[in-house]
């Protein structure tokens, strides 16, 4: 109902079905998501907007298998996340999801290259193969020359690019970004958005990005708004061609 996207079942990478999320803090109940339904097809670049506290991060966490819904189902890449054990989820995440955080969340004790290599520690790849993948990921984000720098020696924009390299190094099915430009100035933010856009268009990566910034949202193929626990799509209601430029005209695979 909130997502009238015409993706067929087989093309859908993410299916969120009547999901409710309730936090209880002491005897206080916080209803964050209320019967939310969402489908994200492969190759989509979706921007999630909404006021602070509206549940954007909560929804993203559910998509990434970091948390489980109170009711309803979240199916991503054919895995029912609500029904999986912590261990299964961990393994699933390492294979299918790349996360990009607002505050980069690099380990300060590791160099850029080693931060990028971190997810590969969980794989059985050989040393040489790992090194190759790290190099490619750093090349994609344009930071090969900073491989041996520590996070504190990098600018915010560079740190975030390392964060993106870490998110893509294991070639995940889905990239989730929670306000990836929220801590950056306009110029650095634009570089990050260029990068995400390229990942979507050139590498075919499916991306869900939470953002406060309408200009950032414009880079996405479509935007959904989260309000009072429900998703509403102005774009879909008004016809997609008006709000976003040429990106809309590209057929979503």
């Amino acid at each position, binding site marked *: 109902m909130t997502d009238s996207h015409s993706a067929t079942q087989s093309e859908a990478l993410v299916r969120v079905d009547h999901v409710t999320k309730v936090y209880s803090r002491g005897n206080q109940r916080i209803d964050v998501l209320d019967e939310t339904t969402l489908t994200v097809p492969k190759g989509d670049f979706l921007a999630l907007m909404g006021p602070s506290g509206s549940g954007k991060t909560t929804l993203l*966490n559910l998509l*990434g298998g*970091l*948390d489980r819904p109170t009711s309803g189902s979240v199916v991503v890449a054919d895995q029912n996340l609500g029904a999986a054990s*912590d*261990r299964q989820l*961990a*393994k699933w*995440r*390492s*294979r299918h999801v790349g*996360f990009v*955080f607002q505050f980069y*969340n690099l*380990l*300060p*004790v*590791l160099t850029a290259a*080693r931060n990028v*290599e*971190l*997810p590969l*520690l*969980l794989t059985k790849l050989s040393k040489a193969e790992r090194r190759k993948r790290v190099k490619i990921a750093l090349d994609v984000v344009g930071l090969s020359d900073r491989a041996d720098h520590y996070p504190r020696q990098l600018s915010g924009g560079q740190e975030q690019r390392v964060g993106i390299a*870490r998110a893509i190094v294991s070639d995940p099915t889905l990239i989730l970004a929670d306000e990836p430009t929220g801590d950056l100035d306009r110029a650095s933010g634009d570089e990050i958005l260029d990068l995400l856009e390229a990942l979507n268009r050139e590498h075919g990566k499916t991306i869900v990005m939470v953002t406060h910034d309408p200009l950032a949202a414009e880079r996405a193929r479509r935007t959904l708004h989260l309000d009072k626990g429900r998703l509403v799509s102005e774009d879909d209601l008004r016809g997609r061609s008006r709000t976003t430029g040429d990106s809309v005209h590209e057929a979503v695979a």
Partner: protein
Amino acid sequence: MSFLYLLWRNLTRKKVRTTLTLGSIFIAFILFSALLALKTAFSAGVDIAGLDRLITMHKVSLVQPVPIAYQNKMEQVDGVARVANAMWFGGVYQDPKNFFAQFAVDPERYLDVYPEIQLSDEARAAWIANRTGAIVGQPTADRFSWKVGDKIPIQGTIFRRPDGGAWEFDIVGIYTAEKGFDDTALVFQRDYLTESFAGIDGFTGWYVVRVSDPDRSAAIAEEIDALFANSPAETKTSTEKAFAQGFANQMGNIGTITTGILTVVFFTLLLVAGNTMAQSVRERISEIGVLKTLGFTHGQTLGLVLGESYLLTLLGGGTALALMAWVLNSFDLGGGMFPVLYLPTWGILLGCFLLLFMGFAAGAIPAWQAHRLTIVDALRRKG
């Protein structure tokens, strides 16, 4: 990059704190090894004491001489295999600092009751044949660079020569002994002493009795003492173990003191290491959340914290233990005062056990906290 590298980088994140903690653990394990070696030295005689040996001495004290005539009577007692006599000489070689024990004995008897003494057949024969001959333990020979054939002057303190000069001993053999047996003494023929020092020829210091049946030791000891009851020189016979124990007890209750000190030290250490680990985890809650987001399981994050704790204690304590084991067991630090100053194997094993226990105890709670942390909570934490 490996998990170990990640452990190492996490451990060395706060250099000052880690160095101080490593230092505390290092020093504690040095102390542990040193005290254990001392304790072993004090009780060495007790542990090595043969169960088949009795010591017969004057009822009043070890210092009172007992008649040498007792020897034959004691050998008549049923169950006595061999009796040897020994007397404390107490001489000084060049300087009182150069302390080592000297005993006046009957060579054949002495070697019979102490099979621990390893001596070549030639040396044994030479010693028995040579009235001024003496055998000396390897460490003491090394200490003063003595060789077979050397003449060693030793000044008598209890037994002064009539001419006031030093007693001269011919080194005829250098002996070794199994670990734990005092191998620093110089042992010589009693005849050399008795013929030159008037009034001592009828006496000896104490007797070492080898029994054929250790189970009958107590009965044999009673029988021996009964032989000389109501004589001017009554005797007291005890097992070598009890004798050595009595000697060790005079040194104060080293064992209790050692245990007490070490308990306090290790308890303090546990607080220090535990605090380091707890702080280290508290500072990186959000990092643990990130690792879990990337796909690290709860078990793997637990392993990372526990591994870091083990790395901390093994680096600090393991090096100390290895260093002390090497130094104590390779060099003679006793300097004659403690003939058997070394770190026994059981001490090294106990040290290793303590290391593993400390690594676990210091890391267990923080590791469990890391395990339980949910990603959502960890990521919401700033810092």
